[in-house]
Each structure stands twice: as C-alpha cells, then as structure tokens.
C-alpha cells in the first residue's frame, strides 16, 4: 500500500500491462487523451498569464496534474457526476464546461461561474473537504433513484469526487468515508496526492499512503502513478464501474506533484527546492504520452498541427472571454440569497440600489 504506485505508462513513454490493473490501450481514444491534456495545460498557462496581467486575482495552477485529471475524466459516463475542488480545470474541460467560465471565480465576477446542473460538474469548492460529503449525499440520491446495479448502462451512474492530499486530514472527509463505506455508496474518491498542501508536505498529514486510508473504513484503496494517464484512467474506470454496479466506494490515490506554487499568490521557494521540482518535471505526464504516441505512430503532422491550432484558438478564446466576463449586477447578492426575497432584505437592496445610483 505504501509501495510503488501502479504504473502502466512509464516516464520513458513505454506501456507495460499490469496484472493489478487491467487496461488495453485500444479501449480508449489515446489521441483524445493527449489532446485534452494539452488543452488543460493551455487553459492553465493562459490563466496564469491572465493573472500576471492583472485580469485575475489568483489562479491555482494544475501544472503536472494533467494525467490524473484527464485520465479520471475519461472514465466518466455522461450521467456520472463530478464534485471538484478548485484545481480540476482539466476535468471541467472534459465535462464541457467553457473554460472561460472557470475564470470568473478568480476574476471576482462570480463565486460560481457555471450551472452545475448542466454538465454534471459541480461548482468548485474552496472549503477543503466539504464537497466529499456532498458527493456522498448525491450518491445516496442515486441509490434512492434506483440508478445503481441495474445493469443498464444508460441508467447506472456514480459520483466522482476529487480531493487533495491535505483534505485527508479534515474531519468531514473522514465522515464521508464513514458514510460511503457503511452505506456502500456509488462514489469514487479521487485524491490527487500532489504531495503538498500549500507549504505542508504530505508527511505532515500522514505517515502512510493516501490509498491506505480506505482500509481503515473497509473499502478499496488503489495507488497509481498520477503522471500516467493510462493508470489513472484504468483505475477510475474500474472504480466507477464497481460503484455503478453497486459494489460501493473506492479511494484512488494518484501520486503526482504540484509543479507550480499553490496559487499565483504563493511563494513555494520558501518551503521546497527547485531540484525536487526539476525531478518531477522530468516525469511530465504529457511528454511521456507524446513519446508513446510517437512510438506507436498515432501522432502525425496532421494531428499535431490540428491540436496546435485548437490550442491557439482556445488561448484566444480565454483571453477574449476573460475580459468579456460580465460584472455581477448590483442587486445580485440580494436576489440570490433566498429563493423568496425577504422584506427586510428587499429594503436593504433598495437602500443599496439608491445608494449605488446616487454614486454613479
């Protein structure tokens, strides 16, 4: 459990099958994985640039976590639902959330940014661990809807909830494990162990692996190379299939590394070395998939060009879209607090609107 994570695609880009985690490379569109990883990196790169230009207040970069996110996301069925943290830009991308909508939260134009009911992708959650319980509750709903274990692939569904290594220490996360285990819920906990919670190395949180935590609750924990998109995809597929089939929860640990500072506001030079970072850069998840694709002949001039064009368009879309994000209306906090605006709050709103108007 604390040993080497399962790896299918090594740093050199070689694929080796593993008896622990069955996976066939032709079971998925590998080029699509590659494309999505690159698009995720594009979103991240552009957002960092926008932050530097003062267009965003903050950005939590996902650099280095592309395999974990894209792998996990490609295991989802449309009917599955995702509960992210604040770093799942790659998953959002795969779910069809317009990446411009991810920017509003960090630009200060919204606290949300997209309609979570549209793409089965919930809002980002900033309170560490809180979303794990929402995931559990949603899974209780799926169970009550009878959408588990029917064998009908258009009906069965599951919840995929993301969390960080730091989140393992929050009481709420552990309550989520209790509930998921005791009620055998259709939920998969996907932990990107990027080895840092801001400045706290994983050793501050635990002396054993993330995956091992699941043992304490009596459900399955799996540890995979988080920079290996095949392993992340395979493990998530297996776990989601089990969840949909009524076999209960799984905790997946994708061992990876947060190569950028915690957010653009962080100064990681204070707590870790460049050498550590360099070592992980050498394990880059995109590089190794590119090598694999090249060696298998799946990458050619045409699709390289194609992806590059799409990347550029996406970058342009982000730059233009960010600046065009609408500012919230003066009345919006009042109108969105309750379904029915209470009298007193209406008075406060009117007071406020008059005040704003007078000032304009």
């Amino acid at each position, binding site marked *: 459990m604390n040993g080497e994570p399962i790896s299918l695609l090594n740093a050199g880009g070689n694929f080796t099958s593993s008896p622990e985690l069955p996976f066939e490379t032709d079971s998925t569109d590998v080029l699509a994985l590659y494309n999505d990883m690159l698009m995720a990196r594009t979103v991240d790169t552009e957002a960092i640039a926008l932050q530097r230009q003062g267009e965003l207040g903050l950005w939590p970069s996902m650099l280095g976590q592309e395999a974990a996110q894209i792998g996990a996301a490609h295991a989802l069925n449309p009917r599955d639902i995702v509960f992210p943290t604040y770093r799942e830009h790659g998953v959002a991308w795969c779910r069809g959330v317009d990446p411009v909508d991810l920017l509003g939260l960090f630009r200060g134009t919204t606290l949300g940014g997209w309609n979570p009911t549209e793409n089965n992708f919930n809002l980002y959650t900033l309170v560490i661990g809180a979303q794990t319980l929402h995931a559990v509750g949603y899974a209780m709903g799926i*169970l009550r809807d009878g959408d588990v274990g029917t064998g009908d692939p258009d009906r069965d569904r599951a919840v995929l909830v993301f969390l960080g290594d730091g989140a393992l220490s929050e009481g709420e996360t552990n309550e989520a494990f209790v509930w998921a285990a005791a009620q055998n819920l259709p939920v998969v906990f996907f932990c990107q162990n990027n080895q840092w919670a801001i400045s706290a190395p994983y050793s501050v949180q635990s002396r054993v692996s993330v995956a091992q935590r699941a043992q304490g609750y009596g459900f399955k924990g799996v540890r995979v190379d988080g920079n290996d998109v095949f392993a992340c995809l395979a493990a998530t597929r297996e776990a989601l299939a089990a969840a949909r089939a009524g076999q209960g929860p799984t905790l997946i640990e994708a061992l990876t590394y947060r190569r950028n500072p915690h957010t653009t506001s962080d100064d990681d030079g204070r707590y870790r070395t460049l050498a550590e970072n360099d070592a992980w850069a050498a394990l880059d998840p995109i590089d190794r998939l590119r090598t694999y694709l090249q060696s298998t002949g799946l990458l050619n001039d045409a699709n390289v060009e194609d992806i590059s064009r799409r990347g550029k368009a996406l970058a342009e879309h982000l730059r233009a879209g960010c600046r065009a994000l609408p500012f919230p209306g003066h009345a919006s906090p009042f109108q969105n607090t309750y379904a029915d605006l209470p009298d007193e709050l209406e008075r406060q709103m009117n007071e406020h609107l008059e005040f704003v108007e007078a000032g304009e």
Partner: protein
Amino acid sequence: MTAVTSRMPIAHALNLGLRHAMEADEKVTLIGQDIGQLGGVFRVTDGLQKTFGDHRVVDSPLGEAGIVGSAIGLAMAGYRPVCEIQFDGFVFPAMNQIITQLAKYRHRSEGAVTLPVVIRIPVGGGIGAIEHHSESPEAYFAHTAGLKVVSPSNPQDAYDMMRLAIRSNDPVIFLEPKRNYWLKGDVSTSTTTPADLDKAVTVRKGTDLTLVTYGALVPVAMKAADVCQEEGRNIDVIDLRSLSPIDDKAVVASVQRTGRLVVAHEASRSAGLGAELAARIQDEAFHSLISPVIRVTGYDTPYPASRLEEEWLPGLDRILDGIDRSFTY
C-alpha cells in the same frame, strides 16, 4: 388526506406534519441519529420508518457534519431532506456545512442551485437535562444570511410550519421548543392556507406594551400578560415564529400603538435576537418608544447546571420584572 381537527401535543403535530409532507412528496427524506426504529429520542419521527422504509427515514452514523453535508448532496440530487440534530448542543460539528455550504450555495450558484434542506433541532432548557441539552443556538443561524430560522410555539404551528418549511426552497433551521413537546392543542390538517412561514402572529391583543417572544416562552408570555391584565395592564403578545427573516413590520406596528417593547428569549443576551429586535425597533419606531426596549434573556454565561436553570432562564417572574421596568422607566 381529508382535513381533520384533533387535539395533540407538539411532538405529535410535528410527526403528523412530517408524515403528511412525506405522503405529499416522495422526495422528502429524513436523516438523523436514532430517528428510525427508536423514532428519535423525543419520538418526533415515531413510526415513520415503518411506513416509509429505511431509504426515506435514514438512521445515520454519528456525525453531524455528515448529516448536513449529505443532506446538501441529496438536495442537489433532487431530494428534500429533513435532518434531525439530536440536541441543540450537538449542532456545532455541522456548522461548517451549514454556514459555508448550505447557507451560501444558492448565492454561489447565482440561483441555479436551491437547497431545500430542513434542519430540525430540539432547543431550549427547562427539562432538567445535562450539559449541551438545553441550549438556544438561534442567533448563530439568524446572523447567517441564506438561512431561514423558524420556531413554532404550539401544535397547529408545529404542523403547519413543518409542512411549509419542507416546501420552502430555501434551507430552514427548524427549532423545536423541546420542553413543550408534550403541550397539547388542536391541530387542523385543513389545507386552508396557514400563516406564512415568515410572519409573526399576534397571539394576544393589547394596548399598553408589546411583548415579543417565540418558541417555549410564548406560553410564559401569555401567562405574564394574564398577570398584567389583573393589574390593569394590557399586553400585546407577539409570537415571532420566524427568527430570520424577522417580521419587524408586525412588531413596529404594535410598538407604534403601545410605545413599549419587551423581548424575551432563553439564549444569552449579547448579540442575540433581542439585540436585533431592539436595534430595529429603536430605529423604525424611535419616536413611538416611551421607554427603552427591554431584553429579558438568558445571561451571558454558559447554560448552567440544571438545578440553577429555573432561576437562570427568563421565566414568568423575570418577564414580569422586565415589563415593570418598561412601565416604570
């Protein structure tokens, strides 16, 4: 279901309200500790698991964050969860889910997600209980934008307000006056519209002073008004019912007639509901006030050992004293 009227205690009226809400909408789902076979420590959910099954009346693990957090998830999945927190003093492990998630989600999602979650909490003292079983945490919730906070004082309201709370698309903290669970009254299940969930009700008309309270203190306030009546003082008694939003219009209208206001609650005084009422009324009815708004409340100490609770709690004598203070100011 045809409308009937019968006499029953608050606990049964709540039970009936839950039952009828569950019959009316199959998405209504109860979650809490010991609410199934045991029917809750106060038996408010008695028999409901038997009727509706353990998927709709869920005996939860011992974690309040889990109860509220999973209710949020259930609500996102289209359910209408009704949580039970076993006692007032045990809601605090759920505060993070209540304050940072439940109360804010609608605002965060710009109205795209509504969370129709009800959190039932037996509250208040006077039952000779041990620590954490006699508290009045309403101010924490009333200070939290995005929550509705209500408390019924009688069986009819218990029934009606439970159904209204469950029908509300906003999260509702539903405070049950535990020492009056066995207080009886007539309950009609008629569908003629009950008073809105967020409206105060004048439970006794008077002209000389306005006495505002809620929950378990309403009957005490009525008694105080009786005593005053004998002394020729005519008290207007308002049952607030909703603690957030507060129906201050009703209170202002009354104070404009009476010129005097006493507010009573069991919770500690500082930054409690009495403070909020005093602040609003001195503002909105400034020129009407003949004497200051008087607060008769629990003291700014932790709830004491139960042998002291009778004197610590604002009871009949202390309310009368407050009324006196107002008249003799």
